[in-house]
């Protein structure tokens, strides 16, 4: 049986299984309403951009605000719906709008708009669910310093898109839990640049929920959690995603990642690594910083990783230490993403560039659902900025509430 036939058989089997059960005769529909909001003030004393007008290509400073409202409805024993609207740096967005059709714990079909299962941080991307004001660098969506140089993280989170996902959880005794997910979704895009060299994340935002790229992206995730009583558990996960991002479906991207989490008592250690292999259109060598190598010269790789330790000190006070970074290797386009390949200036990145950051963060809960956050971040870059700095310092002060 060919792989396509096997996939068809699996899909048909899943649909038959979903169709087997009888709907419950009586079910009280349940509604849950939740929300969160974070206000954050970012100070970068060393950033040259602080002396000029704010630019989307340098660093966001000052106040930023994120808010989200979510409604979850259990329509029947097997059907539920989730809708989440959020407001962030680029206005209002639909973060979720999907239905879950659940046959069993092991088999759930999700259709609509959602962030497909990838990595461990995806579940904690809401600012109310993590102790720092910003996200780890591999998942950064514009809060990092010199974001224009890097075009954000490896996989900026959240990454809602339209499609369908089959997922489930299987318990192996009382000590092991196996989670899986497989999905086909609308791929990332770059329809703006004639010769695309990177994903244009702006095109995944509102007003661009349609795509001219007909081929969907596909991906999967597998995670195993082992529990040692109530006090400790350990999780290992692996994720992958593959798609094309140009209108002609010629240029591919592949993202793979692994994650590890260990919880002992109230202490949590988390580590994640992911890498994106991004094919570039090299038909116009003029926009590149380096000549195109005849072999393996049409792509770059962007690695990212973070490790963090979260330690509650009291019921109200949490401390977090985090180290994260990114490493980019490959040719560099001198044309900013979304510029239409206008080479206005040379990129400061080189064939091999990296950024590393160390963060010390504190979170203090004044009420159960209101927490003040503060963090100190030390940045190191492999290249100097216009002022010659390779090291920078930044501070976050903020508050986050949830209900």
């Amino acid at each position, binding site marked *: 049986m060919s792989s396509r036939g096997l996939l068809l058989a699996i899909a048909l089997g899943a649909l038959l299984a979903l169709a087997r059960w009888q709907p419950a005769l009586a079910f009280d529909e349940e509604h849950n309403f939740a929300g969160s909001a974070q206000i954050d003030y970012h100070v970068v004393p060393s950033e040259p*951009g602080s002396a000029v007008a704010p*630019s*989307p*290509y*340098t660093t966001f400073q000052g106040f930023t605000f994120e808010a989200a409202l979510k409604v979850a409805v259990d329509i029947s024993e097997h059907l539920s719906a989730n809708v989440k609207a959020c407001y962030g740096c680029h206005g209002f967005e639909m973060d979720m709008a999907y239905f879950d059709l659940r046959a069993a714990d092991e088999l759930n079909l999700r259709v609509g708009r959602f962030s497909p299962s990838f990595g461990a941080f995806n579940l904690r991307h809401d600012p109310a669910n993590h102790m720092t004001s910003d996200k780890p660098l591999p998942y950064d969506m514009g809060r990092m310093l*010199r974001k*224009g*140089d890097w075009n954000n993280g490896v996989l900026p989170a959240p990454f809602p898109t339209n499609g369908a996902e089959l997922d489930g959880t299987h318990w192996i005794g009382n000590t092991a839990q196996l989670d899986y997910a497989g999905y086909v979704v609308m791929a990332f895009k770059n329809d703006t640049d004639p010769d695309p060299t990177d994903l244009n994340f702006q095109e995944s935002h509102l007003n661009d929920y349609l795509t001219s790229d007909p081929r969907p992206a596909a991906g999967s995730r597998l995670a195993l959690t082992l529990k040692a009583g109530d006090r400790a558990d350990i999780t290992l996960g692996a994720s992958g995603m593959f798609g094309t991002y140009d209108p002609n479906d010629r240029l591919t991207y592949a993202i793979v990642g692994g994650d590890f989490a260990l919880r002992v008592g109230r202490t949590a250690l988390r*580590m994640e*690594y992911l*890498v994106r*292999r991004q094919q570039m259109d*090299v*038909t116009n*060598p*003029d926009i*590149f*910083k*380096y*000549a*195109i*190598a*005849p*072999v*393996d*010269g*049409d*792509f*770059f*790789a962007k*690695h990212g*990783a*973070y*490790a963090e*330790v979260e330690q509650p000190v009291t019921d109200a006070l949490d401390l977090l*230490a*985090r*180290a*994260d*970074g990114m*490493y980019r*290797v*490959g*040719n560099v386009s*001198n044309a*900013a993403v979304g*510029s239409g390949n206008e*080479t*206005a*200036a*040379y*990129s*400061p990145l080189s*064939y091999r560039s990296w950024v*590393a950051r*160390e963060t*010390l963060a504190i979170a203090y809960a004044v009420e159960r659902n209101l927490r003040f956050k503060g963090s100190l971040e030390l940045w190191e870059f492999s290249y100097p900025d*216009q002022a010659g700095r390779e090291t920078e310092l930044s501070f976050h002060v903020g508050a986050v509430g949830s209900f």
Partner: protein
Amino acid sequence: MGPRGIAVGLRAGLAAIVAVAASACSSFDPRVGPSQESCGVEALGATTATTSAGYGYGTTTSHMTPTTCQADAGAACDDCESKWCCSTRLACYEDPVCACADHALDACIAAAGGNASALGACWSTFANVGTVEAARVACQVAWCQQACAIP
């Protein structure tokens, strides 16, 4: 162990993971040619200007298209190419990538020392750099193969 020690330890661990992952899979290890800024050849008609574009980058170079072909006196290949392949020749010198590749071609031909096999490799490498280079070689082969000693 203080916070700085923890951070250093975490960074070392992450660097090790990244290094192992990067070296383990060659499909994640791209290659590049010479830097357009460092090969020492300035593209024909280039003028240098400073920009303060919002991208935050530094100095940029803009190009003006030359309108004439000027052959180097006494060089048979240059004379022939200027006479019969003016447009592809100028297109190469206007293109910083091609200008760098041409610089490398000259060095390669000098190093080949008349060895036909080595010369063929030099021209093949040059032609494979890109469409501008391939067009230039195609014209030279058509009109100036003998004058340029292309095997």
